């Protein structure tokens, strides 16, 4: 039995989780546990003990991570000594109490497969970037594509737009889904798109139509990323924008329009994918190192 924690420092929040992994048999089945039996017939059991999301709100990410880790330990009824492996991901490579660090793509692939059984790809949409990740059944990344450093089509961009429109982030998805006449955004540049939005507002266009237009513009970019990464079948959205139902709807519509056989879903805890993946990979590494005598 291994207890492992995952800490994902993103650009707007810290996600923390603790898992207990049993019957893994030391094999790197990397998420095949969803229905695949290994270890001589006994199915590995991955149990989430505690998890939480903390917004940074201009605080030091390392301080937030430390506090969040203490909080999940308490929630799980554990002390730091009970945890075999603390894995960081995202921008968490400076966390002092980490045992190891995994890159974002690796952890999102694992987390996506843990949450969405049979997922063949993950679409990680965070505050600043979007990545399409194509993986094999053991969460091994086969191919990926990501947006450039341009802020357009990111969570931060959408937050700005919501602020201009005077709506909360929770309202963005439902408003977009209800809209019937999406207003087309002329470009993908964040600055030009924001200019477009100001013009739409001054012309009295309803917020829902503007948001749906933006979602469709973003979805177009993300679908191109997925296509370039060779994604097929089930796609799990991860990252902060996984909560945006309007975006999920736009993605599925765009995929259908382009006759791509993608089933794009967002797990309710999709924002935790990085932290979950880090913890699960951490558990594997602990067992691997223990077998080698260097845990």
């Amino acid at each position: 039995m291994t207890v492992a924690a995952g800490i994902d420092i993103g650009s707007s929040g810290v996600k923390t989780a603790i898992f207990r992994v049993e019957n893994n048999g030391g094999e790197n089945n990397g998420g095949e546990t969803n229905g695949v039996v290994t270890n001589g017939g006994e199915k590995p059991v991955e149990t989430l003990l505690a998890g939480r999301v903390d917004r940074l709100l201009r605080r030091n990410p390392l301080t937030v991570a430390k506090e969040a880790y203490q909080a999940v330990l308490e929630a799980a009824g554990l002390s730091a000594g009970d945890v075999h492996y603390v894995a960081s991901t995202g921008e968490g490579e400076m966390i002092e109490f980490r045992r190891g660090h995994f890159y974002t793509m690796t952890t999102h692939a694992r987390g996506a497969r843990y949450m969405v059984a049979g997922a063949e790809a993950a679409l990680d949409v965070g505050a600043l970037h979007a990545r399409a990740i194509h993986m094999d059944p053991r969460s091994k990344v086969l191919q990926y594509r990501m947006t450039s450093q341009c802020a357009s089509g990111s969570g931060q961009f959408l937050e700005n737009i919501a602020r201009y429109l005077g709506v909360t982030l929770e309202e963005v998805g439902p408003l977009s889904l209800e809209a019937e006449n999406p207003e087309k955004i002329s470009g993908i540049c964040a600055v030009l798109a924001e200019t477009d939005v100001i013009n739409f507002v001054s012309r009295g266009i309803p917020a829902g139509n503007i948001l749906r237009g933006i979602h469709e513009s973003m979805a177009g970019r993300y679908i191109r990323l997925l296509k370039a990464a060779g994604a097929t079948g089930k796609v799990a959205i991860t990252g902060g924008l996984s909560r945006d139902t309007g975006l999920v709807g736009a993605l599925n519509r765009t995929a259908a329009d382009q006759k791509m056989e993608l089933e794009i879903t967002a797990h309710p805890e999709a924002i935790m994918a990085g932290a979950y993946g880090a913890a699960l990979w951490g558990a594997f590494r602990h067992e691997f190192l223990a077998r080698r005598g260097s845990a």
Partner: protein
Amino acid sequence: MKKNKALEKIQQRCQALYEDLNLATVRAWKAEAPGRKAIGFMPVYIPREILHAAGILPVGLMGADIEIIRGDAYFQSYICHIPRSTIEMAVNGSLDALDGVIFPSICDVIRNLSGMWKMMFPDKYSKYLDLPQNFTPGLAGEYYIAELRTLAADMERLSGHRITDDALRESIRLYNRNRELVLELYDLRAEKPWQVRTVELYLLLRAGNLLPVEEHNAMLEAYREAIEGEERQALDNSRIVLTGAFCEQPPLGLIHTIERSGCYIVDDDFVLGSRFLTAPIPEEGDPVANIAQTFLDHAMETPFVYIAEKEKGEALVRQCRRRRGEGVIFSAASFCDPALLDQPMVSAAVEREGIPYTEFKYAENTGQFQVIKEQTGTFSDSIKLWGNE
């Protein structure tokens, strides 16, 4: 606590020396006694013992991450960065403390730089040191001994000091000790990479570019002592051998990035001149002949060294095995002909041995590391998670 302070002091000194682009350290050394001379040298290797025996300070020049205003005018756009920054520093007066520069044969760019130097600074000493590419003792030995004696005569003339055999033997002893200390730290890092951070080791080597060897030896010994008192956490990182950076050095941020992305660098070719000879030079007998023979018998196999009998890449495979490296990072300067022309052969050699590798290029003024972080981070992950497959 006391040891931590000692370590901090060494780190601060090394950082200050790394940032000393105007060679204030060299000026201060020269000011301590009238008539002192300092000679710069370009990467990778020169026999510093001969300069030291003449009382001359050898100063390693490794370019800099500076704004290039005039340096670009001298080179085509498809040439590496180090000659640009070297010219820039020369014309802006940063290298005024030097009484000359030695250009060892490593590539066409450095050779051409030596010619330009002669034209631009006719009043200063300038030498193209044609290191042998034939490693047979007869002809190559005779040639190289003659070349070294010419260099020694130049140094005697420049310094006004005769190089006695005893003085040269003492210099050999000091540089042997220097190589020994550097190699001990490389061994310690391979054994406990969390204890000897590559950034620290790199800065220690860079300090040796400016300091007299006696002072550098003391610094290396002090670091070794200070580091033994440190308790640093061992991380679950992959073990990487980095190669390709033997001439133009990567920016410090890139080394930080590789380490932070989850890689322990367990061997590298940074500041390679400090350990280019893989065996000590004999301290008895004819010192010039000993320097020459050690070069012929024990020069490190690197891209700028002609290898006739063996396969290119064998040395890297051996290095990887010896250091228990789990993967190789080919990190070469953009437009570095020796490194990039060798890379296909060397990568084929590691591939044959089933050693995973990744590759990227940099320039000494590279400022964005996000893409490299992503590449080395995922490479490290793939080794940790799938390395056994």
